[in-house]
């Protein structure tokens, strides 16, 4: 069995290094452009949010929660939760975390929804996309942070890059699932009236898939939130940054406070998104 030891090491790592170097060397204009756009987007968003005094913003968010969910519980959760965060002196980190989550979710949607639709409509695309999603979801989240640094440097853009990769799979999967779940008889009905593919998609498949797609968006938001926290390791600020500092200084009090703030943000976003998705379902059976 001597020969087994003579098999040269298969250079998977080298290949990846090579690819990343190649990309950062030759496509730096791309990464730079992406970097600039995203960075200024985040900056504007954060500054816009910080323009309001915290208490005013709390009221605005509370009103928004009521408007989107029409549920008193969600409204109260928003009011009390945000107040608590402000009270814990975590208001500014919370806003930058929120901005990171929103920006990465929007990017994940822009890429993920079309891919999901594509995978639903084409069997070949489905067979190509699904294994990639499996890899994306099982790869430890930390690994995505590493290439973010050579490509986008330390800071929020790299964080968003890894967050988008980590949080996009459910959006793709559930969009695809929602469209594929439309009963065959309904699709046949749309076909039998001579619909084009586009008409079928817009008039039948997407409306029918909306609740499932909303569930996917919800999951993407939750994953984005958890990744944004991890991304504090590569210099994303925000609540994750507070946790990261607490770890380095071994300050449980500070860590838990930031942790609780993250939980509050997650719960508010989740409840609101659930209601938005749920309302859509309600209209169906109404």
């Amino acid at each position, binding site marked *: 069995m001597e020969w087994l030891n003579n098999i040269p090491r298969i250079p998977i790592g080298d290949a990846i290094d090579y690819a990343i170097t190649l990309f950062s060397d030759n496509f730096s204009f791309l990464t730079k452009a992406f970097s600039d756009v995203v960075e200024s987007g985040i900056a504007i968003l954060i500054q816009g949010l910080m323009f309001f005094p915290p208490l005013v913003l709390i009221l605005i968010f509370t009103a928004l929660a009521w408007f989107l969910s029409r549920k008193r519980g969600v409204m109260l959760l928003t009011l009390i939760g945000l107040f608590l965060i402000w009270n814990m002196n975590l208001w500014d980190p919370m806003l930058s975390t929120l901005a990171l989550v929103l920006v990465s979710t929007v990017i994940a949607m822009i890429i993920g929804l079309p891919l999901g639709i594509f995978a639903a409509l084409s069997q070949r695309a489905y067979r190509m996309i699904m294994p990639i999603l499996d890899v994306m979801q099982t790869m430890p989240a930390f690994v995505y942070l590493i290439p973010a640094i050579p490509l986008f440097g330390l800071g929020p853009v790299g964080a968003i890059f890894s967050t988008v990769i980590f949080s996009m799979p459910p959006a793709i999967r559930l969009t695809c699932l929602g469209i594929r779940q439309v*009963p065959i008889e309904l699709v046949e009905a749309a076909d*039998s009236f*001579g619909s084009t593919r586009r008409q079928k998609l817009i008039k039948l498949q997407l409306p029918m898939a909306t609740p499932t797609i909303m569930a996917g968006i919800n999951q993407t938001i939750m994953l984005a939130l958890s990744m944004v926290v991890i991304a504090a390791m590569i210099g994303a600020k925000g609540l994750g940054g507070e946790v990261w500092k607490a770890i380095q200084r071994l300050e449980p009090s500070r860590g838990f406070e930031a942790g609780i703030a993250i939980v509050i943000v997650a719960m508010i976003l989740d409840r609101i998104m659930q209601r938005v998705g749920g309302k859509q379902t309600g209209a169906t059976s109404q």
Partner: protein
Amino acid sequence: MPYGAPAKASGSWETAPGRCGVAAYAVTSTNRERQTVDHKIVVQNLYKIFGNHPRKGVKLLKQGYTKDQILEKTGLGVGIADVSFHVDEGEILVIMGLSGSGKSTLVRCLNRLIEPTDGKILLEGTDVTSLNREELRQLRQKRFGMVFQHFALFPRRSVIRNVEYGLEVQKVPAAERSERAMIALEQVGLKGWEDSYPAQLSGGMQQRVGLARALALDPDIMLMDEAFSALDPLIRRDMQDELIKLQEKMHKTIIFISHDLDEALKLGDRIILMKDGHIVQEGTAEAILTSPADEYVAKFVQDVDISKVVTADTIMKNPGEVASFAHDGPKAALWKMRQAGLSSIYVQHKNRLVGLVRAEDASAALKAGDKDLRNILVTDIHRVSPDTPAYELFPLLVESSPVAVVDSEDHLMGVIIKGSLLAALAEGVQTNGMAE
């Protein structure tokens, strides 16, 4: 079922106005040679094989392998195998068979929701199978209306927006769209429900929406895939009556899929019976019942109430002598009755049936010295059309007076008395039983 009879007849002698451009072409099928005929749709040697490399399945079928053998040998599923038939303008053709017989596959091949593997579908001479995607879409938009077993309504659209769907696809302007949709909804009796959602309606009403959705496009061909099978029996009967009534006005060419023989007998001008993907028998309801092609058909029809199928014209006897209202007096009428051995006689005037004269009345009138039949004419008599099913005759025959069978011009074609009805039914049951 008061309108059952005329509708059945409508297909045979009436054609829809303005639709006469039916091309004539020669048709050769494997079952039998057909001469050049004007048919709305002609299906020639149609095959549908499911699975990879379906052509191999066609080849094996042509070599004489059965459905099961092919499945075992190649893993291919035979949907339909060498099916040829035609549909005439304005008729209801019922395709029936048990589940798995290929009837739903067949109807989906007609508008290519399922792509046939081999064969031709000629719609007024145009081969549907050779159309490209755009032409096919045009054809589906203008010519075919489809109604589905489980309604297939769009749950997130209101009733009116469901009905508008086909028009929306054709980019008809909104105002015209809702106008046409409302007309279609009125046709199916759903006016006032336009803003409801499908889930708020009962099954029967949902299928009316399905029907309206197809009718809104004013297609000349309706494909109805087990359209009433998911409804409970009473509603189903209502819907069948409704369809017959609508068909009287619209004269669409309807291809109706069913697994219910009673439904097939009630609706079908002609019936095609399928088994394992091929046609086992094709003909009128009566032909299928009284001379089933094989054991499968015989078994299928053995539970049928024959009185629903045997119609007045097959039971009626020759009316024999008829008195003339203009020329015959009581004396002549009595003489004619005596000659024919009857106790009453029908009276015609200008070749139209006007009534009946009884022997006792005639002899009384003779004694009284009446010269014509005016005073003794019984005008309140039972008349039926030739295609009235036998079971509708029973109540009429309870009072022992005969029933007159008249054509659409009121001309006396025949007469039915109680004895002849029972004899006809007994005979029908016998042939049906013997074939088994």
